[in-house]
């Protein structure tokens, strides 16, 4: 059995806290085409009330995917990357992420649901800062289809 209800409730932590640097934010902003200087110029960010340069809206995925990699690397979980499709994503942010944040992330598998040869894996990743305060919840639903379509 490749995937079953046994996966539900399992948690995976980021290996080490994610140190958010100005360079990380600038690179991500450039990659998604965000030209607002709030992502690259700390003075502009501070003028707008942020502690340091501000991360783009979907930047939390970079932190959350570190915890996702721990799930995929679990030898007891038979997920094949090439058969995995991201089917839904949501970010609920308590506050924006800035350079200087040191973030932890814990992914929990909320449910595994089977439909038409595909397993839908619902995950929730809680991102917290160095003080343990809640920053963002990343909800990702993944669809995993086995090559022969008979098992998930």
């Amino acid at each position, binding site marked *: 059995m490749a995937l079953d209800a046994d996966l539900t409730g399992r948690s995976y932590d980021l290996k080490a806290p994610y140190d958010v640097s100005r360079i990380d934010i600038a*690179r*991500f902003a*450039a*990659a*998604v*085409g*965000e030209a*607002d200087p*709030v*992502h690259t110029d700390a003075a502009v960010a501070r003028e*707008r*009330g*942020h502690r340091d340069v*501000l*991360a*783009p*809206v*979907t930047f939390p*995925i*970079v932190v959350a*995917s570190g915890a996702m990699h721990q799930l995929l690397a679990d030898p007891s979980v038979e997920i094949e*990357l*090439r058969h995995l*499709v*991201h*089917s*839904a*994503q*949501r*970010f*609920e*942010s308590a*506050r*924006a992420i800035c350079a200087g944040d040191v973030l932890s992330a814990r992914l929990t598998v909320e449910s595994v649901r089977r439909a038409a040869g595909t397993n839908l894996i619902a995950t929730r990743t809680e991102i917290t800062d160095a003080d343990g305060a809640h920053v963002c919840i990343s*909800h990702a639903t993944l669809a995993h289809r086995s090559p022969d379509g008979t098992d998930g």
Partner: protein
Amino acid sequence: MGSLARGDQLPTQTYRVTRADLIAYAGASDDHNPIHWSDRVAASVGLPGVIAHGMFTMALGGRALSTWAGDAGRVRDYGVRFTRPVVVPDDDEGVEVVVEGVVDEIVDGAVRVDLTVRCGAVTVLGRARASVSTDA
């Protein structure tokens, strides 16, 4: 976004996406799945060609939201379903992704926005919704 009313249309944003953008996104996000850069691998799993990362398309919606909001920090809740892939050809023109937004609801301190994200005639994100804080 403080002066908006329910049903208001936000300024449509149009973004051009080329293969070079996908390579840059792969690096910045550490998502190196070859279906986002190799025609050979994309074809081997039955795709019509190299496709954009779903998260890249979602990020374009996020870019529209931060443009409308005036600051990315005001976007507090943003969710999408990845319904159709954005196929990106290996040429200089790439493809255009169009993001439209309509004000769905105004609640205390926040504007709820419904997004429509299309590539050509195809809607590529479903149930795309966001909540944007109107606090300064």
